[in-house]
């Protein structure tokens, strides 16, 4: 790794506090490997199938513990504490709700459509809030839990309110919506009793969203112009050789178009991840994120092809590759005080564990 690959790419405004000379970059690392995860994955699959899906909750816990537990920063790893029964409960609620809804929608179609709309508007933010709480509270680092203080109102405003604003303004406020969602998830998070701050401003979001938009227009516009030219040429061609040539040109064109579109998608993905994670401040620690479009797209595309051509067997290696790339291009810009965080309640983790043990302590995520 070169001197400081994170500095240049960080979209966050620079920390306002004067930086002592002792700051250092602590990169995340992933210590798992595809072969090891393959064995965990396939055993999970088998047990899930022969238990008719019941084991999937246990499988999820093992999967997340493998990925969290192999994620290291400053020599220490993360831990996932989710309990299979809480996950199973969440899934049963979702399945039961689905079945009830299907039956209801056959009996009372109009009422059910209205109900579905209300459920989407109010249910989705609620589920997101509950899931964030579960995810954060079930994660620890150095035996200190993360936490999430987000409320329902905030989720409703961020996920639904800003969405409506984006629609009303014909998409002009779309970047604000994206940013609000990230802000809700990150601003409300905490490590121990230290609340996160989300520093990335609207400017960054508007910039990469509009660049994405114009790149997309340029790609489609370019294709249109080239096609129009080619179409005219092609329509004049009656000779079979010319047609064949046009065919090859056509293929080259299609490939170039796909590559260009993927490049745009990669630019967006990388920019969004950098804007989100790179904007996190936890006390005197700053997260730096330096994903780049082409390596990211290279990983997505090669993973997809490898999974399809191995009939799914490559899946565990694909997951590991993707996670490794993301983690190894993320780091903590630290003042060396990673040991100075304190627990929220001043007591051990057990108290937090009990506090979240209520009925709705369920995980709705996949």
């Amino acid at each position: 790794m070169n001197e400081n690959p994170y500095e240049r790419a960080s979209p966050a405004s620079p920390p306002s506090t004067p930086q002592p000379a002792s700051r250092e970059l602590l990169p995340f690392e992933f210590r798992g490997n595809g072969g090891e995860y393959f064995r965990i994955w396939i055993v999970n699959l088998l047990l899930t199938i022969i238990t008719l899906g019941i084991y999937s909750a246990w499988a999820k816990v093992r999967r997340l513990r493998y990925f969290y537990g192999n994620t290291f920063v400053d020599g220490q790893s993360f831990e996932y504490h989710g309990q299979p029964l809480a996950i199973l409960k969440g899934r049963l609620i979702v399945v039961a709700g689905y079945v009830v809804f299907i039956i209801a929608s056959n009996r009372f179609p109009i009422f059910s459509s209205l109900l579905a709309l209300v459920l989407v508007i109010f249910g989705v933010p609620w589920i997101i809030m509950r899931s964030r709480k579960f995810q954060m509270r079930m994660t620890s680092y150095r035996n200190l839990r993360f936490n999430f203080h987000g409320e329902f109102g905030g989720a409703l405003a961020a996920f639904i309110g800003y969405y409506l604003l984006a629609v009303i303004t014909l998409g002009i406020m779309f970047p604000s919506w994206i940013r609000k969602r990230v802000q809700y998830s990150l601003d409300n998070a905490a490590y121990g009793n230290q609340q996160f701050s989300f520093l990335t401003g609207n400017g960054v979001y508007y910039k990469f969203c509009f660049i994405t938009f114009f790149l997309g227009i340029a790609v489609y516009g370019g294709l249109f112009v080239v096609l129009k030219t080619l179409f005219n040429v092609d329509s004049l061609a009656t000779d079979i050789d010319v047609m064949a040539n046009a065919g090859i040109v056509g293929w080259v064109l299609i490939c170039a178009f796909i590559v260009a579109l993927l490049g745009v998608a990669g630019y967006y993905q990388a920019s969004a991840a950098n804007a989100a994670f790179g904007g996190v401040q936890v006390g005197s620690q700053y997260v730096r994120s330096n994903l780049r479009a082409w390596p990211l797209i290279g990983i997505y595309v090669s993973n997809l092809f490898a999974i399809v051509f191995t009939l799914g067997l490559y899946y565990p290696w694909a997951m590991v590759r993707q996670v490794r790339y993301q983690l190894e291009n993320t780091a903590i810009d630290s003042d060396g005080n990673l040991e100075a965080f304190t627990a929220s309640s001043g007591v051990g983790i057990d108290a937090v564990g009990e506090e979240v043990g209520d009925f709705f302590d369920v995980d709705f995520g996949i």
Partner: protein
Amino acid sequence: MVIAGRYFDGRTSAGAEARLEFGADGNVRVYGAAEPIAAPLAEIKISERVGNITRRISFPGGGVFETHDNDAVDQARESLGMRGGSPLVHWLESRWHVAVGAMVAVVLVSIAFVHWGVPAVANWAAGVMPAEIDRSIGAGTLDVLDRVAFEPSELPKERQKQLSDRFVTMTKPLDDGHEYQLEFRHGGHIGANAFALPSGIVVMTDELVELAKSDDEIISVLAHEVGHVRGRHALRQLLQAAGISSLAFALFGDVSAISGVLSAAPALLHAKNSRDFEREADAFAKQWLRENGIAESNFDTILCRLDDSHGDADDKDDKDDFDYFSSHPSTTERAQCPKEEPEAATEEETPVEEEAPVEEEMPVEQEPPVDTPLQE
């Protein structure tokens, strides 16, 4: 036994270089922390091993000892005779021959599950569900068809009454919770056909009545449709699609990129199930005919004639069609067609219509086959 690691007290993120000892007196001690830590073996919790991730040994006060020396922890557990956790799962997960075996088993179990398991479970579940459910599945279908396809029947009222009476005589003794009812429509471009809605409504086109040479032929077609209703095929189809979607979801649910590829699976099986249901309905019809002293040949005759009336464009050579594609069994399999109708030996052509709507999400709500036409 002494194990090296770090101790975190749970109050701050500060950790201390520490050693953990499983004492001979049944106590577990940590050396190196700011204060001496000790607890009886029964009160500590050792995290389950997954791969080679950091092992955590939790103490009652909230402190945790973390170590990368998984093997030493496992040895200590074993020598102390500790139970619990799931060492068996880790044992399975850490061996390549188990992984290969599991892989083969996943493939075989998936195939068996799709081929036998899903239909059996769906059949059982349908048996448990009340007949009212059937009514809700295809509600509104006839209204839609009346708007887009059918016209009112042109059959004389007396003829309709005559056939309806025979239909009532047939369905009354069944007493299976369904409200059977016969409806007549002018088929138009649909031509001679009959189909059943899950609720028990059987629709027959005027063209079919005209095509039939005797009432026994008509009644044999109606018996086939009643077989669909009585067998609750629409509900079972719905349940099977849900089962297959669940399997696909369990296998690759978190790979969003390939969910599009996966959504084709229930569609392929849809056709196979549908043919199984046709055979079941055929069997019901023939049995009913036998029991009521009507010649089974009536069913064969009308089926072959129907096939003729539809199958002008049939390919003669699609016998080698992959068995999973067409929605009806071939007529040659279903009926003994009389020799004077040589055309009738042709296969049906259906695979094109079996393309399922490709959805972005997992196709749990795959449209059920609310109608089960006798012929396509």
